[in-house]
């Protein structure tokens, strides 16, 4: 049964808390997704090779024993900022010639409460969502358990969303 949702409402629901709502107006063939697969593969390899997926590196970061993770995140943000600035300055379009848009994030208290809970989980599992996928690929098959648990956590949030302070 497909729920009947008005188009405008549908967009609003997806926009809530979702990072990725930059929807394409064009119809793309399925193989258009291959570029995301390749980006993902390269990203996963960097994750493994830089040991970003390592529980040990995360513990070192939170114990201020190593600069490695701060260097990775800091330089990633610096390159990201520069790239976004260049895209805006030169009005760079997508490969399909579409306008690149940026969604503004609204502040709510969830960023504080949720952020703290996420931080606790990050240090406990030694992985944020990206590394969970990479760790499974790396051969740590038991990480399927925290991944399923994270999906369950997402679901429970969705279920109790209305009753939680935001």
């Amino acid at each position, binding site marked *: 049964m497909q*729920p009947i*949702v008005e188009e405008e409402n*549908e967009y609003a629901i*997806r926009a809530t*808390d979702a*990072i*990725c709502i*930059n929807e394409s107006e064009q119809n793309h063939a399925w193989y258009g997704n291959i570029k*995301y*697969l390749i*980006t*993902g*593969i390269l990203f*996963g390899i*960097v994750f493994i090779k*830089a040991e970003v*997926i390592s529980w*040990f590196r995360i513990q*070192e970061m939170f*114990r201020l*024993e190593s*600069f*490695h993770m701060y260097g*990775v995140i800091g*330089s990633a*943000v*610096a390159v990201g*900022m520069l*790239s*976004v600035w260049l*895209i805006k300055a030169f009005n*760079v379009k997508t490969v399909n010639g579409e306008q690149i848009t*940026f969604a503004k*994030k609204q*502040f709510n208290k969830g*960023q504080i409460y*949720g*952020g703290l*809970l*996420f*931080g606790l*989980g*990050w240090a*406990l599992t*030694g992985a*944020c*969502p*990206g590394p*969970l*996928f990479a*760790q*499974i690929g790396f051969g740590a098959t*038991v990480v399927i*358990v*925290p991944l399923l648990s*994270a999906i369950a*956590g*997402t*679901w429970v*949030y969705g279920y109790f969303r209305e009753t939680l302070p935001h």
Partner: protein
Amino acid sequence: MLDLIKQPWPWYIAGPLIGLTVPALLIAGNKSFGISSSLRHACAACLPAKVPFFQYEWKKETWNLVFVLGIFLGGVIASNFLVNPNGIQVTENLTKELAGYGITDFSSQVPVDIVSWESLLTLRGIIMLVGGGFLVGFGARYAGGCTSGHSITGLSTWQWPSLVATICFMIGGFIMANWILPVILSL
């Protein structure tokens, strides 16, 4: 050359490459880099259960699921062809501290003493794998994003709510790693 690639990559190589994911996805199709959304799409696809938060056309976000499949495959490729045979080098302080909790296996990037199927039969294994995963999923969605969506994409686009979220990620992490984790590891 391959030998060099097999060594752990320094932060000044890896960080900029991770940062380039932001423009790569924007130019590929106007997509904002974010990973925890994939967990929400999984809920919407598998068990929407009339929860309004999951009532949307998740198929429009297929790219995000394909992207995380890529991360998984990247892990498969790296572990088969680019693996560093020397295990992981951990700082002396941490090595000493972990030895006190019986964590002595540094052959993999994950601590094999905790992250294994056998450890799911122990209390600390359940707390860390099941509890930790739950907090990551619940917290990321409550915060509206994870390290990628907030700390990398959000900060790259100068969004102050993402800075708030990132600071809270770090505070939570410091509290867990320094004060709570030692108790859990002693179980």
